[in-house]
Each structure stands twice: as C-alpha cells, then as structure tokens.
C-alpha cells in the first residue's frame, strides 16, 4: 500500500505496533482522497510543532438546519490545500449502534464520493461522523444520507443526539427498552436537535440498568437509568454452582454496599428493602441472580463536563417511575418532564449555562418547585447540616398586623 505524498517520519512511527494504526486508516482513505492526504500532512505538522493547525470555528451547514455540521478550516491551506475546508457531518446513529453491511457500504460510498473517505465510528455523543467535505458539497452529502434514511445529529446549543446502551437487544439486565425510548425522543425532538435555540447543549442518554454502559450519569443533562423495585430473583441451584467456583461470601455478600445479603447454610438471602440496586451481586453471578420483575427507570439530572462552572455528576430527580407503562402512552410523563425542565431553563438560564449549573445557581428546591416535583430524601446524600435556611414564610402577631395597618 502506498503511503502519503507528504513526508511523515513522526506519524510513520505510529504505523508500527500491535494495536491497529489510525495512521494506516488515514493513509487508506488518502489513497482515494487527496484532501485526506493533505490532512495527514497537516497532522504531521502538528506532531512537529506541538500545536493544532485548525482555525477557530467558521461557518458550515445546510439550509434550514443550525446543527449537525461542524465547520473545520485549517490554518495552513497553502501547504495543505485539501484541508482548507475539511468539515464534519454528525449523522444520527442507529439506536444501539446496529447496522447492516448493506447500509454501511452505502455510507462508505457516500463518504468516498462526497467527503474525505474518513469516519468516526462513533463520536463520543454517539453520532457517526463523516469527515472531510466542503461547504459546497454539504447539501448533497446530507441528502444522500437522508435518502438512505439517515438524518443529521445535534451540535451547538441544541439537543444533542440522544443515545443508549444495547439494552434489551442483547442484555438480560435491561429494565426498559432503551432503544425504543431513545428513538422515540429523538423523533419527537427533531426541531430541538436541528435548530439550536437552547442556552447551551442538552444531552439525553438511556441506560438499561445502573451499570450505565453509556455513562449517562457522568455526561448527560438527563440520564435515564433502568431499575427495578421488587426483589432480585434468585436461583439457588445456580448459586450453588457459583459457590463451586468462588467464595460467595467474600466476593459477593461482603461487597454489597448496604450489607443486605446473607449467605449461610448454602442459601443466599437478600433483604431487598435495603438493596440500592447497585448491580454488583447480579454482575457477579449472572446465571443465579436477575433484576426483579417490577421494572422501571430512574432519572438523574445535571451531569456535565468542566465547562463552565466545574464538572458535575447527575443527581436523582425521579427515584423510580414506570417507564414501561409510559411507553404505552407514548412517553407522555417523560416528555412533559423534559418540557418543564426546558421551559425553566429557557426562562431562567443564562447563555452557556447548562441545566446542572442553573439548578446549582437557583437551588435544587426552587428548581423542583418550578418543575412540580416533590423533594424526596432519595435526592440527597443527607439532609443539610448547616442551619442557614431560607424560610419562605413567617408568622406575624395580630397587634403587629394592626399597628402596621393603623
């Protein structure tokens, strides 16, 4: 395989080694795409200079959408003309990241014909990214994808492409249909994704259980995580099988965070009223233990990365709700809740303020009132220790009232 026309001694080193080489992938794409060849040259320049060679921002997009295409212009178009414009399209992934070879080949053809023959499978939000096209090609690229059934994803101050774990498609622990709800919300909120009108980005991610394989609790403003309410189902025969393989007391029972398990006389018991559904025991003995039958979801809110006021994890907003029943009602509860959150954010949020930061600024209690949710002890690690309570009312003695009036 021929390499690149540029001299790339530093990148060449990254063609060696056991792990697959992204440099080889770049070179493969460059075989067909001179502009990707220039991308390699530009990257080598960064490896030499220890500095990125991209300009800040720059406009790119398609008509009627304010999101989904991220403009990228290099700062060295004289030396690497192909990188003058080398934009990214975020293509809304298929839920659960399932594909057929047929659709992948067609995407590959579109990517060769209208872009630099380069993809990210996937971006960290979850979109497929097609890299390396110019503004004048954007519309045709978009429409070719659309004819294949793919729309653009979110970017900028918009709803970002929702995404989910593999859920019931291939996981026995899914407490609700993560693919279905993600697909449903994405369709419902097309306008919010494509036409940015928010203060800042908003992310929704759906995980089927507290293992949270999609990292929703650490990076999505709204994290929907499947849980169950009733008892963990135990198959004692299978417990006995595991007992032959490892020390159940040491590796399972003693590690339960709420000490609600017991293993005596070869029998495993769980005080389910104290189980916090952490998944540890189930993860350890998948053949013996299964989540309960009363399945639902928990909602956490406010996770985000450091910008601007520091990183946050999501806290519990709704400890449990029957999302499987809500599914039959087209997720009315969930959509109403999301709408209330957005209304509040729209009214009180400032520019580039994520919902978690707004909640921090106005106080969780006020936020709960505004979105009409009751404060619950599940929401906090513990009640406040400091006595600086902002009481909202006080009693007034009758004479005082009179004297005021008098």
């Amino acid at each position, binding site marked *: 395989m021929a390499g690149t026309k540029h001299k790339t001694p530093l*990148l060449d080193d990254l063609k060696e080694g056991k*792990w697959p080489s*992204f440099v080889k*992938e770049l070179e*493969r794409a460059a075989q*067909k795409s001179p502009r990707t060849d220039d991308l390699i040259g530009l990257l080598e320049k*960064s*490896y030499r200079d*220890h500095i*990125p*060679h*991209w300009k*800040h*921002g720059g406009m790119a997009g398609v008509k009627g959408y304010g999101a989904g295409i991220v403009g990228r212009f290099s700062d060295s178009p004289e030396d690497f003309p192909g990188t003058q414009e080398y934009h*990214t399209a975020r293509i809304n*992934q*298929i839920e659960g*990241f*399932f*594909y*057929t*070879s047929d659709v*992948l*080949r067609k995407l*590959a053809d579109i990517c060769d014909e209208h872009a630099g023959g*380069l*993809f990210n*499978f*996937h*971006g960290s939000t979850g979109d497929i990214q097609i890299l390396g096209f110019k503004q004048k090609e954007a519309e045709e690229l978009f*429409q070719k994808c*659309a004819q*294949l059934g793919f*729309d653009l994803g979110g970017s900028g101050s918009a709803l970002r492409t929702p995404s989910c774990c593999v859920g*019931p*498609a*291939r996981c*026995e622990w899914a407490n609700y*249909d993560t693919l279905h709800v993600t*697909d449903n919300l994405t369709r419902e909120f097309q306008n919010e994704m494509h036409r940015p009108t928010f203060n800042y980005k908003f992310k929704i991610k759906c995980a089927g259980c*507290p*293992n*949270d394989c999609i990292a929703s*609790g*650490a990076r999505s403003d709204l994290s929907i995580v499947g849980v169950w309410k009733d008892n963990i189902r135990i198959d004692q025969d299978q417990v006995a099988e595991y007992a032959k393989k490892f020390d159940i007391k040491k*590796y399972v029972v003693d590690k*339960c*965070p709420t000490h609600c398990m017991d293993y005596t006389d070869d029998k495993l018991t769980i005080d389910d009223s104290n189980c916090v*559904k952490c*998944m540890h025991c189930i*993860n350890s003995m*998948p053949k013996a233990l299964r989540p309960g039958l009363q399945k639902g979801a928990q909602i956490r809110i406010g996770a985000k*990365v*450091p*910008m*601007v*006021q*520091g990183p946050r*994890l999501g806290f519990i907003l709704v400890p449990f709700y029957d999302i499987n029943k809500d599914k039959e009602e087209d997720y009315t509860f969930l959509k109403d809740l999301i709408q209330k959150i957005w209304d509040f954010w729209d009214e009180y949020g400032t520019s*580039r303020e994520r919902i978690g930061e707004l909640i921090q600024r106005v106080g969780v209690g006020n936020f709960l009132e505004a979105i009409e949710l009751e404060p619950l002890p599940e929401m906090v690690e513990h009640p406040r220790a400091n006595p600086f309570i902002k009481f909202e009312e006080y009693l007034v003695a009758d004479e005082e009232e009179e004297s005021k009036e008098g």
Partner: protein
Amino acid sequence: MPDVDKGTVRITDIGPPNYENFLPPIIKKNYGKWLYHEILKPGVMVHVSETKDKLYTVRVGSTRIVSSDFVRDISNLADKYCNGYLRFTTRNNLEFLLDKEENIEPLIKEVQALGFPVGGMDHSLGNIVHTQGWLHCHTSASDASGVVKALMDEFYDYFVGDKLPAKVRMAFACCLNMCGSVGASDIAIVGMHRRPPTVMADRVKDLCEIPSTIAACPVDAVRPKTINGKPSVEIDEDRCVFCGNCYTVCPALPIADPLNDGLAIFVGGKVANARTKPTFSKLAVPWLPNNPPRWPEVIEAVRTILEAYKDGARRGERVSEWIERIGWPKFFKITGFEFTKYHIDDFRLGEATMNYSNYARL
C-alpha cells in the same frame, strides 16, 4: 416536513433509521428475552435466551477514526459470518454477533489477519474512548489518536487478556472541553494548557462578543479593556486557570502553546454503580510534556498506575476502590508521583475535599 427544492423533494427531520430494521433476526426474536450471559474467553461471550437460543459476540478493538475501506472490510466479514449484521459499542469497539458457535474461530482468524485485536471484556483494559486532537480540533493541547495508539500498543496484552484485578476504563480528552466526558474513568488523560490565552487585541472587537467572552470565564479573569482605542479585553494572569473557555467563545484569544501544552492524568473514576457510587477521577499527575509520536512520559505514568493497581488491588476491585482502601497517601507513595499544591482543590467547593478527621494511615 419535506421541503420542495428545484422540483425534487428535500428530505429533512426524518430522525434516525428505524433500529428494528437493523437488528439481526436472532436478536429480533429474543429481544428482551435474554436470560444470562457467560464470557467464553477474552473477547467472546454468549447470551442465552429464554427461547434457548444462543447468541455469540466477538468484540474487536478499532481505531475509531476509520477509512471507508475499513467499513467495507468489516461489512464483508459481517456478510460472511453474521448474515450481514454487526454493531459497535459505546467504546468504539466492533461487535460481531453470531448465531453459529462454529463461526467464532474462523471469524477471529480473519479479524486478526486484518490486524484487529479481539478482547476488551471482563477484567481487561477497554478500548480508550477519545476525542479529535490535533487531527481535527483547534483547542487541542495534544493529539488524541496518537496518544491512544501509543498507549494501546504498550498495553495491548491487557486488552486481549483478562488479567487485571477488574475492568479498567481509560479515556482521553485533548482539552478541558472534554468531548467524550472522560472525567469518570479509571484512568483519564486530559490535554492541559498552562498559559493564559494570548489577546489579539486588534481583532477582539471584530471577532468576539465582549460581554459573552467575559461571562465565559469561570474565574472572572477576563475584563474589558480599551487597547489602542479599540474595545478589547485583558486577562488576569493570576486568576486564569487555562481552561480555554474564553477562546471557545472568542477566536481572538488563542490558547494553544507548543512549550506549555501537555497532559494531566486523573485516576479512580467510574460510572457504574456497582459496590460504590459513580465518581469522578482525581488528579494523579498535573502535567506531562507532549512528546510525539510516542509520548513516553505518559506511557510511563500509566504503566506505573497499572502496575501498582495490578499488584495492590484485590480481585474485583476497580481502581477507585483500591485507592479508597489503601488511601491516597499510599497511592502517591507506591506510584512515586509527587503530591503537590496542585493536587489540593482550590476551585469552587474544593474545600469539601479536605480531610476533616484524624484519619491517617501513618
């Protein structure tokens, strides 16, 4: 909302393709009916359904940034072994889904012949989720794919094996924007700037909205200032924490700097709820130099952490649990990383991280 343009119907707002059309038949049939799974060997697992059907998964590491021909290669494999279906994971792995056990080994052979590793399950080092880096982003303090490649070459055996005390999730972000939200990983590597942005005073007025630039700073280091008769801003060097957020809103405040950009390493984060609560990763090493193409300083630091963890953690303990058990002082002692002023949080609520007790393992 189709929109008619030059006689052809322009397609918009259609959302994603319907996932149901892309599920392999065995998954459609057993959707929501899976009973349990078992890991058969590193990178290979079987899911067993109520219907007794068995689905085999072969997990394959990829580079995330891939060529169209790579996409064709994997499509060919999917045709040959998986009735034309395949999926990706949230960590940029591929998963081949097989309904015939006898296809596992031939598939693995072909995958390996193409140079791709099978693994990333159970007590392994997962594929490193990462960002754009110098390859495609203007705020990057480092390259993403390059550091990841250098690391995965070095720690390859941990991906294809299962010899770690528990799973290790590593992630990389090339600046504090942290595309990919890496901050809750067992090991998080983050591109760091170390010098305040340069104010291109003449250009601020034309390129930036001054009030929003000021508002973008988390520590109020950006202030309005008239320079050469033009409205501009100044940056208070004593306050700046080099986050780059002002640059994100104002192109006239570039922050990349070849001498001072580098990488920090954070450890002990997790997102799963198992045994302990989700938590962010904490600072281990504040700054290491950019040393492409192999970033040896970063590799050494990660090796130090992985080896200390491998030696010290009990079976099943994630990095966070191991450090929690032995205590941070011992973590610094074992690894030899210097504990400095920078390790003590002085940002908002940082005080909450002090040790308000007499607990110390002396």
